[in-house]
């Protein structure tokens, strides 16, 4: 009755089966749980070893320790600054530019059509 093929999507070179994936996921979860249980039982969470260490600096309040949205991926945006500079130049927020891009795409399509020259 239970037809596994029914849930599958054939993608050409393989298939995708969410039910099978969930089985695999559960099995892996069980394995992870077993491995985790192999750890030392007598580890204590209190004490010096679980304290925050900020290169010797004093620890801030908990509220201030939260990394804000604009600070996340700071490194990425900083290193890709050239790209963002280019993209920001396009995103002017100016309606005239929006219409200009529309005209540009029309012109580009016209060129593409002219080159291809019809069927």
């Amino acid at each position, binding site marked *: 009755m239970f037809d596994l093929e029914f849930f*599958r999507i054939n993608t050409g070179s393989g298939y995708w089966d969410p039910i099978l994936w969930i089985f695999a996921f559960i099995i892996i979860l069980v394995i992870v749980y077993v491995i985790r249980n192999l750890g030392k039982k007598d580890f204590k969470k209190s004490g010096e070893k679980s304290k925050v260490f900020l290169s010797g600096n004093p620890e801030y309040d908990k509220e201030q320790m939260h990394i804000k949205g604009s600070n996340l991926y700071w490194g990425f945006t900083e290193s890709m600054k050239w790209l963002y500079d280019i993209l920001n130049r396009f995103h002017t*927020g100016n309606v005239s530019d929006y219409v200009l891009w529309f005209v540009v795409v029309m012109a580009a*399509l016209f060129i593409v*059509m002219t080159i*291809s020259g019809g*069927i």
Partner: protein
Amino acid sequence: MNFLPVPPEYIPVLIVAIPLFGAFLTPIISRINGKVRNIFAISILGITGFLVFWLSTEIFTNNMIYTYVFGGDSNVIGSGNSAYAIRILFEVDSFGIFMAIIAIIVAFIGTLYSYSYMKKETGLDKYYTLILLMTAGMMGMLLTGDLFNFFVFLEITGISSAALVAFWIDKKYAVEAGFKYIIISAIGALFVLLAIALLYGQYNALNMSVLANTITNFNLIDQIILILLFSALAMKAGIVPMHMWLPDAYGRAPASISIMLVGATLSSLYAVFRVIFTLYGKVFLSVSIQTLEFVTTANILGGFIVLLAVLTMLVGVIMALKQNNLKRLIAFAALAEIGYMILGLGIRLAAKSVIYDTEGTAISILNPAYTQAALTGSIFHILNDALDVGLLFLVAGAIYYATKETSLDRMGGLARNMKYTTIFFLIGLFAMSGMPPLNGFASKIIIYESAYQLSPLVSIIAILSSIMLLACFVKVFHSAFLGPKQPHLKNVKEVPKTMLVAMGLIAILIIIIGLFPNLVIENAVKPTVDAILNNTAYISAIIGGA
């Protein structure tokens, strides 16, 4: 199956007429009571949704095309070769009804969500009138078989959605976004009208089937019409580089309107598909032996569309990574998702394979099998994208409702107070960024596979932008939901029940489609793809014959 007093032939017109009627009844009903008006709007959309689903089961199972002629018995005067098509008519095939399902789900959820979300606002009778008008406009765009009628509904959708974008009229960015949107939709609609006028002047018809039957040789006028239609509709669908209105409009509108704007954008995308595959079907779908080894116009146009798709995906995710405004971030991510849809379209057009015989001369030309898969993935992704983006917008709206914050910098630790919203956000996150086992993965893997067949580079870019989408939303998840409670957000409460129900409904749909993708593909997406590619059926449903 006939348990309604209405036979299924009448449903196409009722799907448009009931929201329209409800829209004009709303100002009168809102005189009674605000609550009655809200329930009235929700129930009108519920009835419409029921009719859409019912019609869709009829269409998907029988794979047939319903036509409905306004104001008369038949749409043809005369007979035989002198037959002359007149009258406005609706022509509903699998593609139209598939998109109508998406649009009605989005509209219904948006209205249900606004019950609590917009409770404290004033001017709500106009809000609900415009919502119903916009739904009627989207439905009309998706179901009509007449080009001028399409233009009218395009304008109805554009006007009402621009007014809704600027609904928070006391916020200056909202007004600005509304102005940009109305300029863009006016320009788009006017150029669509110009193209329609050219078609009317050239072929003396406004009916899509008649036109599709007539456009066979791709002459200069046809090319200009295609350019006008494609660029205007692509602008309304938000394809790079004509996408700049999209983050403004999505980001500044109320969340319940953002989700409906997704529906409006996808309706324009539907029109792009419709123009290319139905109106120009005889040009792009037919494969002739004369063009064997040449690159056809379809291939070049397909290449251009693939280029646009790649740009759309990349610009969308790269800009999304940087945003700090939550709704603007989701809007850019939604832009990237649109790239996946037109990627499938581009692959369908760009690819072709030539079969050689033993002596090395080409004997036949055909579209390889993976192009069909690409289109399947693209159509499936339209459904998934509407649900995923919609859910994320609703979550952003819930955060705004609870905290009155839009910037990610001012959020933090919301998971401690808003449990259900966090769960819904996680579902949306995984679905949107194409993580198994949710629905986004199911459609994206089909697109990856077919893109790989065309060019591995395109596939790599698609996967890369999917990974970057995940990174975007991990950023949101970390900065908004995780971390310690922020001092100014100590008293945040979970949002009201109707909003949770609206989000929950989409989340359940996402999980169901994610777990049983084959169910949807076999029963809805495959008939849709067949309907798109089979334009002779679309033509013969109106003018008869083969």
